[in-house]
């Protein structure tokens, strides 16, 4: 069984996001980048587990990005990917990203495509579903547990107010979230092997994005917290009414 894991590079969660002067883009200088946690901790690690348990025999990684995303891809290779493809393009448009990935995956014949439920920078959460549609594969979103038995996937996912268990034949695209696997740390063996694992660069399909980001703005600074003593219920009520305007 061949698994494709979609990897996205995102700013480190502790990075202070700085915008370029006119809000036209995020200033990447001084920003540390990481593998999107949903892609890494859940999708990739689950793929590795499936390989370790003998269910899968090959893990391929794909990312859409320029050369500066390679450290992140090699980290994913260090964790346990067998080979990686970088589609040489910059994309903030989920449709564009999905088409690039689908065009690459089309001829390969993956049994399972795993991705994170969303990337933590743009949080669109739709690339996985789009890839499935473009490849005419089935799709299960927001998986919290993935079991594979022969050519059938049993997927547990959270739904409003409960859980549901889906059974679906492979091939399949699944977006992953917490619960699918536990975070792992790349070990020395993997880190050293990452250098020798293939990382191929391919040109993107010649298509245009369907969305465009006009400008960025930072969220307004959080207002301070007012602490009211438990004895002063009247003041609290007054403030909730006059300042917070919630009652």
């Amino acid at each position, binding site marked *: 069984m061949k698994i494709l894991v979609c990897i996205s590079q995102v700013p480190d969660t502790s990075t202070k996001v700085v915008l370029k002067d006119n809000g036209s883009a995020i200033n990447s200088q001084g920003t540390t980048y990481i593998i999107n946690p949903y892609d890494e901790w859940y999708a990739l690690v689950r793929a590795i587990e499936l390989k370790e348990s003998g269910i899968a025999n090959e893990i391929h990684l794909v990312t859409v990005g320029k050369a500066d995303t390679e450290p992140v891809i090699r980290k994913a290779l260090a964790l346990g990917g067998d080979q990686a493809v970088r589609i040489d393009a910059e994309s903030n448009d989920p449709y564009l990203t999905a088409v690039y990935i689908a065009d690459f995956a089309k001829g390969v014949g993956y049994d399972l495509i795993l991705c994170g439920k969303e990337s933590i920078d743009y949080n669109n959460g739709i690339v996985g579903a789009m890839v499935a549609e473009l490849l005419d594969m089935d799709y299960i979103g927001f998986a919290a547990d993935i079991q594979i038995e022969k050519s059938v996937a049993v997927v547990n996912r959270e739904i409003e107010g409960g859980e549901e268990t889906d059974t679906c034949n492979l091939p399949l695209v699944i977006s992953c979230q917490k619960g699918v696997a536990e975070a792992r*740390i790349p*070990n020395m063996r993997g880190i050293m092997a990452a250098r020798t694992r293939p990382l191929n660069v391919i040109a993107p399909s010649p298509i245009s994005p369907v969305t465009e980001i006009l400008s960025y703005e930072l969220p307004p600074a959080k207002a301070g917290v007012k602490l009211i003593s438990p004895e002063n219920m009247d003041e609290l009520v007054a403030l909730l009414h006059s300042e917070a305007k919630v009652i």
Partner: protein
Amino acid sequence: MNDIETLKAIKGGEFLIKETSAEHVFIPEEWDEEQLMIAETCDNFLAQHVKPNLTRIDNQEPGLMPHLMDEAGALGLLGISVPELYGGFGKDFKTSMLVAERLGAGNSFSVAFSAHSGIGTLPILYYGNEAQKQKYIPKLASGEWKGAYCLTEPSSGSDANSGKARARLSDDGKYYLITGQKMWITNAGFADVFTVFAKIDNDDNLSAFIVEKDFEGLTLNSEEHKMGIKGSSTRQVFFNDCKVPVENLLSDRQNGFKIAVNILNIGRMKLGGGTVGACKEVITLAVRYANEREQFGRAISKYGAIRHKLAQQAILTYASEAAVYRASQNMEEATEMLVASGMDESKAKLKGIEQFAIEAAIIKVHCSETLDYVVDEGVQIYGGMGYSAEAPMDRAYRDSRINRIFEGTNEINRMLTVDMMLKRALKGELDLMGPAQKVAGELMSIPDFSLTNEESLFSTEKKYLANFKKAILMVAGGAVQKLMAQLGKEQEVLMNLADMLIELYVSESLQLRVEKLVGLRGEESCKEQLDIMRVYINEAAEKIAKSGREALNYFAEGDEKRMMLMGLKRYTKTDDFNSIQARRNIAAKLITENKYCF
């Protein structure tokens, strides 16, 4: 100093008489992708396995520390510099230093880690015969077995060769029977293999033995109650006719002291790296707290008194780090040259380390004292919370203190710094006399008032550094002449000279680091680093002046004293410099980034 040569493969101690070019130093800003990945693995390991368990670790929860060592072993972190042939990863010294640095932020865990991978593993790796290496190293590199090192005894600490432990051959000639008592043995509680030092019969010098925990006659005392690093296992180990097979004699008979000294040289350097890692962690905590804690309506990071502390913490840390990696690179190059000349790799590594023993001692002292400063001000920045056992500064403060004591006290290391320097000069390995005489001659001549010959970004600091060298050569030369054989006993003077050498080495390392960095990134993106360099070197000038004055006032007299004091003034003179503004700039960067960021 026209006579100063620029060399790539600078020899140990030569920093006092030669100039190093910035392009030949290694700076931490040059880590490659793989090394950064290894560093990240260390960070992640601490974040996931160590940090959430610090209290459990300090309570010495049974099995926890060995379990953490197993986890680190599974990640490959215990065998970084062990050759692949013995189950390790064969990485260079700098990379193993990087691991020591990153894991240095792990409090007691970092002590267990460094004892295991340093003094617990290296004696066998570097001095063991093939059979010994095959038997022990793969298990130590994987963490399956844990290592410890038994040198210190109740009555022999700094004076290590005076130990009372004795070994004698058994009647059948198959065993050495070791009897003695070893103290302050890190990892003793869970170690499987001990490198034990004892004298065979009435030998003058120590021999070293590989002792397994199950060998008959080895017993452990209970855990020591310590001020800090409470999670690290520290016990006495008793040997009562402990039966050690003769094939477990490590290296040659009476070679133990040499092993002990050389392994300590590596330990000292690694301790430097580890404390730098701890410094960065503490600074990050301090900056975050200062940004969050409000008093008089503003975050305390807005106040100059706090900014001064934050900046000073970062300045000392950045400078320490520069020295650690400069020396690591030098050691590696020395080793490579020896290997290229046909020497066996283990031997070459030891020679390389021995070559830089002076730098190792300097680094040990400077870095441990930097961490003590950093944690002390860390507590201060936290204010009342700094004194609370609920906040992290309490542990950091207590854990730091041991670094000035183990791996040779800072006093021993200071004396060694000067002692080794002078011994090398006597042996003709280091030409101190020529340059010292030149300085003496210069004292008689008309001073050169042009502070800088050429104007470049670093010309001022380079001139200062050349002058620091002259100041040291003058004071040291004077001390040798006046005190002669007596100098070794004048410990206060040795301390003064050591302090001067330390300041010179760290200042120069820092200057070279920043110069190389500016070359890589451009002046505009290195403003804070330039400030760090300037503040540090300006302060170093004052420290060198103070130490020099103290020494001169003790041993020199009359006209000669006056002349040398004037020379010292000239050689430690600096231009006006606005250090308050520079520190503010450095602090501003830390505060904006909300972490240690240099």
